[in-house]
């Protein structure tokens, strides 16, 4: 860690596996330092990404125009039916609304939109300024629920009220209200909900096909290709799979304590983790031996197709080094394993919102000498990438051009990607994407070697 100027406050958020002091404990889950060029977002962002894929609901952003403009259809969450979620609705609050309040405007907007689009529910996202001027969004929502006969739900997502994680929590609260309004409580045998699956590039459809083959019913996905009525039926499932754990564990816990639906944390990225997840489901339903048999058949069939396909990529990629900087740490675990499968090692790993346990796990799976960071900034990230001589960065929109400027390949593992990375076929797509970037001849023209310290 010498040579890098770290802010004193950052010293406890960065370490190198094998060289950290014995009593080192990562200080994560902290709000970012004022003045940091952080890669993090806010509460609103968290709520918006979780609820956004519900395609037959109305999503209206109550606040000045920006928050709606920046989140207009930026996720690749696909819908097999309605596309209402891809429209951008906002009350576009103006100066007079800030002075006199925006409640009337919100009410009028909801009335007009619900009449025109006939949604199954409406989510009202309150942004920073709404929290400050004191609009009673709950009251407006109650009134419109009564008037329009659909659930109109306030999502308290004022940006300053915490981190993106608090936004997930607000989204879970909103989802809970839909789930809890379900009338049928009868359990469906061998059925699951997939939580934290946003159907980016159609990933939920890939997973649903696996479960169909296994003989397991998917009652609802939260929230990819989501429909209000399916979510309302969620309590009929016998098991919850929690994928993007950071975003949706709160809801799973609540469904466990209130309805007794157990949940397991799974990941559908990478061969091991997909197989593990499918077997975990089969294992839960072990009283039905057919399910386990079908799962075995499914996994072995998929692997027999997949492994030969991976081999050609692995040949080229063996020995290459990768850096990972993603939103939730859980995703990083799977990526490390998946990259290892391609012969690559991870020398730098970090997340925006990981917790202590996450970083413990990260440390366990990473190799000696790997740098582990929480809530990093561009200067740190670039410095470490060069020091470690990485060939690939996996991250999101803000990290991509930094990697390219350094002459480092990049793979988008965030929600702007257009290819499915989940499931067995996702692993092939992942390998192909990594291969396409790492092996591209364009890097040969890049003067990156000069930049290495």
């Amino acid at each position, binding site marked *: 860690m010498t040579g890098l100027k770290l*802010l004193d406050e950052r010293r406890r958020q960065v370490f190198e596996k094998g060289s950290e002091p014995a009593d080192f404990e990562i200080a994560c889950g902290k709000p970012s330092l004022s003045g940091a060029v952080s890669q993090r977002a806010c509460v609103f*962002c968290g709520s918006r990404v979780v609820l956004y894929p519900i395609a037959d609901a109305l999503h209206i952003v109550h606040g000045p125009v920006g928050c709606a403009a920046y989140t207009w259809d930026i996720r690749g969450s696909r819908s097999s039916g309605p596309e209402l979620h*891809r*429209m951008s609705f906002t009350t576009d609050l103006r100066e007079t609304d800030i002075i006199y309040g925006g409640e009337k405007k919100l009410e009028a907007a909801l009335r007009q939109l619900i009449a025109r689009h006939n949604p199954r529910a409406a989510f009202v996202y309150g942004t*920073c300024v709404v929290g400050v001027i004191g609009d009673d969004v709950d009251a407006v929502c109650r009134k419109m629920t009564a008037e329009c006969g659909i659930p109109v739900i306030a999502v308290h997502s004022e940006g300053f009220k915490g981190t993106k994680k608090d936004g997930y929590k607000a989204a879970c609260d909103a989802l809970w209200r839909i789930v809890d309004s379900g009338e049928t409580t009868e359990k469906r045998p061998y059925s699951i909900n997939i939580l934290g699956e946003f159907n980016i590039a159609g990933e939920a459809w890939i997973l649903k096909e696996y479960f169909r083959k296994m003989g397991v019913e998917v009652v609802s996905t939260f929230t990819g290709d989501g429909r209000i009525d399916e979510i309302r039926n969620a309590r009929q499932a016998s098991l919850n799979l929690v994928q993007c754990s950071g975003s949706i564990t709160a809801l799973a816990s609540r469904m466990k304590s209130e309805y007794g639906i157990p949940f397991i944390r799974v990941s559908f990225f990478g061969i091991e983790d997909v197989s593990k997840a499918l077997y975990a489901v089969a294992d839960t339903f072990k009283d039905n031996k057919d399910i386990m048999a079908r799962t075995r058949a499914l996994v072995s069939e998929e692997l027999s197709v997949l492994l030969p396909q991976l081999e050609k990529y692995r040949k080229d990629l063996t020995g290459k080094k990768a850096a990972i900087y993603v939103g939730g740490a859980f995703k990083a675990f799977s990526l490390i394993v998946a990259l290892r499968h391609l012969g690559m090692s991870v020398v730098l790993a970090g997340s925006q919102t990981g917790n202590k346990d996450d970083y413990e796990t990260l440390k366990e799976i990473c190799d000696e000498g790997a740098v582990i960071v929480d809530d990093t900034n561009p200067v740190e990230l670039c410095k470490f990438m060069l020091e470690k001589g990485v060939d690939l960065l996996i991250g999101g929109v803000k990290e991509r051009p930094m990697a390219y400027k*350094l002459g480092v390949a990049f793979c988008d593992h965030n929600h702007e990607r257009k290819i499915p990375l989940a499931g067995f076929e996702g692993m092939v797509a992942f390998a192909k994407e990594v291969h396409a970037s790492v092996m591209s001849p364009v890097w040969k023209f890049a003067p990156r070697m000069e930049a290495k310290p």
Partner: protein
Amino acid sequence: MLLRHTTAETIVEREALTINPAKTCQPIGAMYAALGIHKCLPHSHGSQGCCSYHRSMLTRHFKEPVMAATSAFTEGASVFGGQANLVEALGNIFSIYNPDIVAIHTTCLSETIGDDCGQIASKALESGKIPAGKVVINTSTPSYVGSHITGFSNMVKSMVTSLSESTKPGKDNVVNIIPGFVDPSDMEEIKRLAGELGVKTILFPDTSNVVNGPMTGKFHMYPAGGTTIEELRATGDSKATLALGPSASGAAAKALDTKCKVPCQELELPIGLQATDRFVDALRKVAGVTVPESINRERGQLLDMMTDMHQYTYGRKVAIAGDPDHLVSLVEFLVSLDMKPIHIVTGTPGKKIAPRFKASLEKMGRPGNLKAPGDLFHLHQWIKQEPVDLILGNTHCKYIARDEDTPLVRVGFPIIDRVGHQYMPTLGYRGAIRLLEKILSALMDRQDRDAPEESFELVM
């Protein structure tokens, strides 16, 4: 059918609701303007998400790293004021990122709770958080007023009010040019044109070589480009200012006139033949130079292309959305090509916008729709009521283009699904040649696609 939810129904007036906005909020404009100062770190005084969204959107548009810091508001800050956050932020910024200048802009949150950033910055200076020789400027950019264009305008105005100085009785033989919210390629083109004319200029802000820099194998927190602080100070000693685009550049030019007695002229953005003529002419007059043959040649080439291809542009109906300064000049250019820009929408509010279209729309020879402020839902409804041959606008217009099966030429901000605008201008004669090429290609590709075999043409 992405926008299947748009109907051609009678258009309902919407006071309370914006659908598919044709604008975004002030702070991103302020951030972009600040990137046009050399070694400047823009700072967003608000929640973390604002800064993150702006950086992401600018990154998508320019395909470049975009650096900016944030006060990272917490619940406490929103109750007790963000002073502590900002003072701490300034200390951290100078000690770790070491910029020459920090340009602070506010957000809806910090504006509503009433933070006075100027006063907070003075406090930071008093308490030694700002090292000697370093500069902090600030501007007020409430997201609930105006649009991203207003934010750009406010930040540029703050550069003048904070930095411009008149140091002597006489003026230097230098002309200030304020380019407006345009791409770095456009700023480069303005500098090139001024260079051809032999005029000494200070262009501010200047994002060329900041957000369209070369690939060097290195990451630079502060790329090579940008107007320097010395240049910004010297704008007060220049003999004139040309403000390109009244909406984005007018306020700063007027402030400079008031503060340092630098006379200013407001011009429409030099997009298309006539607007570029006016710009070149204004620059020629104010600098007392003659237009060189090289520029006459560029102009002649543009005119040549316009005359060669006028049959393909004749009578073509266009729907257009974007920022006011772009729109006014684009509409004039379209009308000069005998095209019919019948539906025009900008998201930026302002009473002074509509009259600027008057002359062009009169020349069009038929009525047209104009809405400021309007949104893309409204534009789409108009298109359903009277279809067009071409759409001009930012990336968000691609939904309408797809649903209505109408060709789209991307202009303005943001363009997040195509490249080229970073390096190739739309301003100036050469920019107009590029723009016309794009328009013609879009129309002719469509003609080729739709032509029955017997009328499919090789030579067009």
